[in-house]
C-alpha cells in the first residue's frame, strides 16, 4: 500500500514584511507534524520560483502594491486549488495601504514617492532621485487587498497570525473540516 500523496503547498510574500512567513516557522514543533502531511513547493522557503505542479494550497502574505505582485498572485490563483490570504496585508492591504491615504491630490503616486525619496523630513538621499531602475516593477496606483485582484478562499487574520492559528487552520483544511475560526482564537484585545 502506497502512502497518500502529501499535499502540495506554495507560499509567496507580496507587499508584506515576511512577518507572516516568520509566523509560519514560529509554529515550532508543530512544523514537524505539518511536514509529515505537506510538501512545500514554490516558496521563498524552498527558493523554487515557478510552478512545476499544481498545488493544493497557496498561501499569500501581503497585498498588491506593484505589477509583479499582481502577476504572482494571478499565477497562484491559476495554479492553486485553495488560496489563503495570510495576515492583514493580504486581507486588507495593511500597513503598505497607508499610502492609499494620499488621495486628495491630482497625482497621488508622485506625491507619495516625492515624500518618500525627496521631500520627506528625515530623508538621506544624496542623488535626489526617485529610484527608477528598469528592473523595478511598476507601482500600482494604490495598494490593493488580494481579494480585489483574485478570488480568495480563506482568510487567516492577524498581524501576524500566531503559529498556532496558522497550524490549526492548515490542519483543519487538510482534514477537510475547516469552517472558520473560533472567535476566541482570533481576538487580539
Amino acid at each position, binding site marked *: 500500500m502506497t502512502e497518500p500523496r502529501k499535499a502540495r503547498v506554495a507560499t509567496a510574500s507580496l507587499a508584506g514584511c515576511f512577518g507572516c512567513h516568520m509566523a509560519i516557522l514560529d509554529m515550532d514543533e508543530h512544523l514537524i507534524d505539518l511536514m509529515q502531511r505537506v510538501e512545500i513547493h514554490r516558496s521563498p522557503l524552498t527558493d523554487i520560483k515557478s510552478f512545476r505542479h499544481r498545488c493544493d494550497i497557496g498561501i499569500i502574505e501581503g497585498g498588491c502594491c506593484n505589477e509583479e505582485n499582481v502577476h504572482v498572485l494571478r499565477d497562484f490563483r491559476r495554479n492553486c486549488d485553495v488560496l489563503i490570504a495570510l495576515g492583514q496585508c493580504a486581507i486588507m492591504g495593511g500597513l503598505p495601504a497607508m499610502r492609499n491615504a494620499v488621495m486628495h491630490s491630482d*497625482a497621488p503616486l*508622485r506625491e507619495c514617492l516625492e515624500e518618500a525619496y525627496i521631500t520627506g523630513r528625515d530623508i538621506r538621499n544624496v542623488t535626489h532621485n526617485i529610484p527608477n531602475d528598469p528592473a523595478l516593477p*511598476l507601482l*500600482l*496606483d494604490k495598494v*490593493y487587498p488580494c481579494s480585489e485582484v*483574485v478570488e480568495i478562499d480563506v482568510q487567516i487574520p492577524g498581524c501576524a497570525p500566531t503559529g498556532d492559528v496558522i497550524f490549526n487552520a492548515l490542519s483543519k483544511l487538510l482534514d477537510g473540516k475547516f469552517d472558520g475560526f473560533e472567535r476566541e482564537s482570533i481576538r487580539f484585545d
Partner: protein
Amino acid sequence: MSTGKNAADEGLEPAASNQVQIEQICAAFDNDHGRMLDILRAVQDAQRVISQDAILRIAELTGLKPIEVEGVASFYAFLSLTPRGRVTIRLCDDIVDRFAGLAEVQAAFETVLGIKTGETSADGAFSLECTPCIGLCDQAPAAMVNDIVLTSLTPESARLFAARLKDGTRPEDLISDRFDDLTPIERARRMVDNNIRHAGCVLLGDVPQDAGLRAAAAATPAQIIESIERSGLRGCGGAGFATGQKWRFASTAGGHRRFVICNADEGEPGTFKDRVLLTERPRLTIEGMTIAARAVGAREGILYLRGEYVYLRELLEDVLADRRVRGLLGSNILGVDGFDFDVRLQIGAGAYICGAEGALISSCEGLPGEPKTRPPFPTTHGYLGCPTVVNNVETFCHAARIMDGGAKWFFDMGIAGSHGTKLFSVSGDCLNPGVYEWPYGMSIRDMLVAVGGEDAAAVLVGGPSGAMIARDMFHRKLTFDDLSTGGAIVIFSGDRNVLEIVEYYMSFFVHESCGYCTPCRVGNVFLQKAVAKFRAGKANPADIDYMRDLSQTIVETSRCGLGMTSPNPILSTLDNFPLVYSAMVKAPEDRLRATFDIQSAISDARHLAKRRSYIFDKDFGA
C-alpha cells in the same frame, strides 16, 4: 436685518458691531439655549457666517460651552462656519431636477456669476451651492435664493436671473417689481405654483372655516380622541401610526406640561404635499393642532417648518397672528374656559433627518438634529421631556375635518385599514405633475392614467425610503398595507437609468445621515460605492450578496428611520429590477477578478517612470 443697521448706525467698528448684533439676537430669544437654532439662523442671516467669535459670544450669553454651540452650527446645512455670499443660491439637486435639466441651469449660473458650485465670489456677494430636494419637484429645476424660491428654471431664465442679481437686484425683485406691496399669500403664489390637479372632499375641496374646532370645543377631550380613533385616521407622514392612539397615549401620560408639534419638515425627496397644504390650508393645519391640544391637554405648540420652506414664514406668521386676534389661539379659545393654546413657528435649517420625530424634537430644543433613543416615546417623554404629540401637517388637517364631518364620514372613504383620503405629490416623467387628493386604494396603473404617465417604466412610491416598483407590479394599490407612502410618487420613463437613480438616492442618504450610528454613517457610503461599481460595469456576482448583507446590517442596527430605510433604493430595485443588476455583472475568468484593471492601475506609474511594463505590455516585455 434691522438689528445690523442699529449697530452700524452707532458707528462701531465692524467686529464690535457684530458683537452688539449677536447680543441683540440672543436677547431677542431671552438668551435661551433651547432656542439655539433660531439664534444661529438669525446670526447666519445677518452676518452670512457663524464665526468663531460669534460662537464664543453666543456660548457665553446662553451659558453653553463653545463646542456645544459649534456642534449645532456645524450640523445644519444652512448654517456655515465659513463666510457665505450675501446672496446664497441653492440649486435643488434632486434626481428629478437633474432629469429636468439641472446641469444646464447650473452651468448658466456658474458662467454669469463667475464662480463654480460650492464657491463664494471673492467680493462676498454670491455663493452657489447644491442642496437636496427642496420640495418643488413638480416645477423642477428649482432653486432657493436666500429666502425666496425660483421655479421651472431654464438656462435662459437662469442667465437672466443671475445677471439681474449681479446688477444688484434684490432676490425679492426677481419675483415681482412690487414684491414689497404683495401680501404673503400673493408672494407665495407668485413664487410657487401649487399645481392642485385633483381636489378631494376632505382637504383640497371646500373647507368650512373652523367648523372642526367649534365641534371640538363643544366636545370633551375624551370624545375628541374617540372620534379620531373611530375615523381610522393614520399618520400621513409615512409611518402610518394610528393618530387617535397616539393622542390617547399623550393624554394619559403624567405631567402638567404637554406639547403639540406639527411636523412640516417635509424632506422626503419627491414629497411636496405639505407645501401645498401650508400655502392653501394653513388655517386648517393650525385648527387641527388646536384640536389636538384640546384632546391631550397641551397649552403650547410648535410648527416645525423645514428651512427650505422659509418663503412661507410670513404667511404662517400672519395666520397665527390673525387667529390670536380672532380668539382661535391664546387663552379661552372660542370662549371655552381653560382652553388655552398657542403656537410658535420653528424654522429648520436644512437637515432631512429632522423629519424623524425624535430628531425634530432635538432640533426644537436647540440641539443638533439627532434622533432620540426609543423608548421612551415622545408621547410620554418628548419635547423638553414632556408628553408630546408630533403629527404631520396633513394628519392635523384631516383631524380638523373629521371633527366637522364626523368619524363615520371619514371611515367610509378608502378601503379597510386605510381610511379617508390622501394627498399624493406626483412628479417626474408625467404630463401633469402636482398634488392629487384621492381616497386610499387606487392602483398604480389607474394613478398613472390620471397623471398622464402611462409609459412609466418605474415608479418610486414613498420616496427613496419607500419602494421602486416595475411594470409587472402596477396593479398594486396605494394603501398602508400594500404600497405605503407619505405622499411621494416619482415616475421614471424607460429612458431613465435605474442604477443612476439608485446611486443618486444613496448619495442623498450618505449626505443626510446624522452620523450617530456607524452602520448608517459608514455603511451607506459602502452601498453607494457598490452601486457605482455596478454602474461602471465593475461588479462581481458576489457584490449582490454583499449589498444585501450590508443593507441588512444597516437596517437592523440603526436607531432611527433613516438608517432603517436608507438601503431601500437598493433592496427594492434588487427585488424588482434584478436584470438591471445581473446585466452589469462580469463573471470572473480563472477566478481572477475581471473588475481589477491592471492597465489603469499601472498607468500612473508608467508616466512617472517613463517606461512600459515588462510584464503587462505584451509587445514590449515578456
